[in-house]
């Protein structure tokens, strides 16, 4: 049993070791605390994001479906003149037949049929009219027709209008609600995907309003912005970083670029209004002017990002190229810029995403005006997604409320798609190593 005679395996700690050990506990505790702070911060950020997205989705999802009433319509030859099928009042035709179906008699002044007409979208009459003009032989027959309903009726079916609200404070009377209930019970009311929302431009009627015009307007604007801001910004950054002499003038330019990045975007809108519209007489509210303004706004961001990406390229690569006898231009374009490309792309993506969401400057160049159509080119009046959100949010019709949230979702989706494309492009630009 020699082991027992040996001194204990753990030698008495040196005083320094003991002190370090004591501090070690505090050091680990500090590390743990810091990690906990980090987790809390991320948790709060995720929570806010979830609340934000959740509330938008909750408000907006109902805009993606809509209701319609399918009914038998007797195309009464007494109402529709066969020689002029476009001249008849089809809205009234649908409304009066619906009243008859429900067994409600119209009064002399037509109050009830007017109330019934209000339940349908103006598009119902147009749709029926087009069908008759296309095929006049239908006159005198009874056809099955699916009529889109109006925004208020749609909201009622979406449980957005409550009977508990006093009649005077809601857009639909008790009588109209009763009619809607009976229509629903008869199985005439169907709900389906709201394709109009994605295939139409803006409209004063919420049920006819869509985002397509704004999406195309935004896409055209970003095209102009990207084509101008990225090459000019990268070119300016390469020149300033790699070629320009470092003197007072370049220092002055640098300070100004940094300042421009912090200028409020509405100032760019004023500049665009003064220069592009008032002086150059470019068409108001056009994607061309919008793109130009957003390009001006994006330039500082792209220049700053590109310059820092170029600065991050190790000088050994520049030296290697120069020592091989490459000219300055060759060393920049063969080696330095390709290495900086991921950073450049990141800056460009950020700038473009920022440009997509920008509203204030577009309001000033006339995009806040009502543009119902779908833009046909760079110079035709157009809307933009963020401006559409702004316009709809200010609209008085209740149905625009859900559409505002839906438009925000479309804007977010647009941004995600754009960023994905940019990331794929960046991957391709990146060297394989």
């Amino acid at each position, binding site marked *: 049993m020699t082991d027992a005679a040996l001194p204990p395996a753990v030698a008495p700690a040196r005083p320094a070791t003991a002190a370090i050990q004591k501090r070690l506990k505090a050091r680990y505790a500090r590390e743990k605390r810091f990690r906990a702070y980090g987790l809390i911060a991320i948790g709060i950020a995720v929570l806010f994001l979830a609340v934000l997205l959740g509330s938008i989705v909750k408000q907006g999802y109902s805009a993606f479906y809509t209701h319609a009433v399918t009914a038998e319509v007797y195309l009464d030859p007494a109402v529709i003149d066969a020689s002029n099928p476009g001249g008849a009042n089809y809205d009234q035709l649908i409304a009066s037949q619906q009243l008859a179906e429900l067994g409600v008699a119209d009064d002399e002044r037509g109050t009830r049929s007017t109330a019934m007409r209000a339940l349908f979208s103006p598009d119902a009459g147009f749709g029926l009219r087009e069908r008759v003009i296309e095929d006049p032989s239908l006159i005198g027959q009874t056809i099955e027709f699916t009529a889109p309903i109006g925004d208020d009726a749609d909201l009622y079916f979406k449980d957005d209008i409550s009977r508990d609200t006093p009649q005077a404070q809601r857009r639909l009377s008790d009588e109209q609600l009763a009619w809607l209930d009976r229509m629903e019970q008869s199985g005439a009311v169907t709900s389906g995907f709201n394709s109009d929302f994605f295939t139409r431009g803006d409209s004063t009627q919420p049920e006819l309003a869509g985002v397509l015009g704004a999406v195309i307007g935004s896409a055209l604007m970003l095209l102009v912005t990207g084509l101008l801001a990225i090459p000019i910004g990268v070119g300016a950054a390469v020149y300033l970083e790699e070629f320009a*002499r*470092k003197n007072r003038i370049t220092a002055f330019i640098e300070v100004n670029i940094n300042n421009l990045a912090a200028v409020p975007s509405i100032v760019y809108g004023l500049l665009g209004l003064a220069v592009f519209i008032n002086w150059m007489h470019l068409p108001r509210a056009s994607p061309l002017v919008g793109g130009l303004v957003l390009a001006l706004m994006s330039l500082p961001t792209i220049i700053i990002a590109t310059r820092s990406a170029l600065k991050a390229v*190790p000088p*050994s*690569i*520049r*030296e*290697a*190229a*120069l*020592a*091989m*006898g*490459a*000219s*300055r231009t*060759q060393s920049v374009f*063969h*080696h330095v810029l390709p*290495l900086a490309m991921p950073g450049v792309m990141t800056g460009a993506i950020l700038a473009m995403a920022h440009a997509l969401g920008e509203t204030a400057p577009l309001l000033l160049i006339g995009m806040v005006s009502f543009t119902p159509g779908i833009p046909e080119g760079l110079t035709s009046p157009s809307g933009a997604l963020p401006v559409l959100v702004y316009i709809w949010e200010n609209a008085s019709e209740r149905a625009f409320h859900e559409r505002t949230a839906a438009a925000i979702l479309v804007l977010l989706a647009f941004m995600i798609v754009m960023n994905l494309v940019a990331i794929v492009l960046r991957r391709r630009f990146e*060297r*394989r*190593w």
Partner: protein
Amino acid sequence: MTMNPDLVAPSREPRQGDVSALDTDRNPGHAEAPVPTVVHPGLTGPIKIKAEDVSVFYGQKQALFDVSLDIADKAVTAFIGPSGCGKSTFLRCINRMNDTIPSARVVGKITIDGQDITDRSIDPVLLRARVGMVFQKPNPFPKSIFENVAYGPKIHGLTANKTELADRVEHSLKRAGLWKEVADRLESPGTGLSGGQQQRLVIARAIAVEPEVILMDEPCSALDPIATARIEELIDELREEYCIVIVTHSMAQAARVSQRTAFFHLGQLIEVGPTEDIFQNPRERRTLDYITGRFG
């Protein structure tokens, strides 16, 4: 002495310093004059590079003081000295890499084959095609092994077609003793090689443009002893064809690879001579102190 017409071209990178005032009393044919053995002992062959009173300033600070030195062709010349002694600064004058530092100013005259390379009319791009350089840290381009070696011939238009280019790449890699290791993976990244292989790749890249001079700035300081030995062997082989100038912190390396050694201290050339003499029988006290490890 023949002037190389390639070297006389409009300069795209004007030099910062003006040497014309200092050069008025100099004879352009000076390089042909017999070399005074007292000043330039240990020359083993014809003079390739001749430096006369070269000083370098970084802003207000002078880094190199009136260095005059002849460097022989087809031989290895080593520059030794403690850190900051100006040996790398002098090396970078030979291919005018100091031009890329805005605050640097070079005064004096350096000739290669009798032609003044510090002259404004000399295009540094052309000069660097004749004077290759290998840096302290291996710096292959983040491209394939093939692209790394092919880059020089490509930008200088040295090959007419792809086959010629491929031949030249193969020849250069063979010359740098790297071919066997990379022949089957020419398309893989040059940055994926080991440090020693990268440094040989960089040497292959330099010799692919058929330079006359190869400058090496501490080429082995980032390498392990085995890779170092490999590079030293390579330097010894390349000496037969090129004028090689190597800056090194390792005195043992200088003793192994060079025929002639120059000792720099505090921006001055203290002593130059045959390598054996410098290490065994230095004339200057400071040289002795340095090689025996008393400072540096």
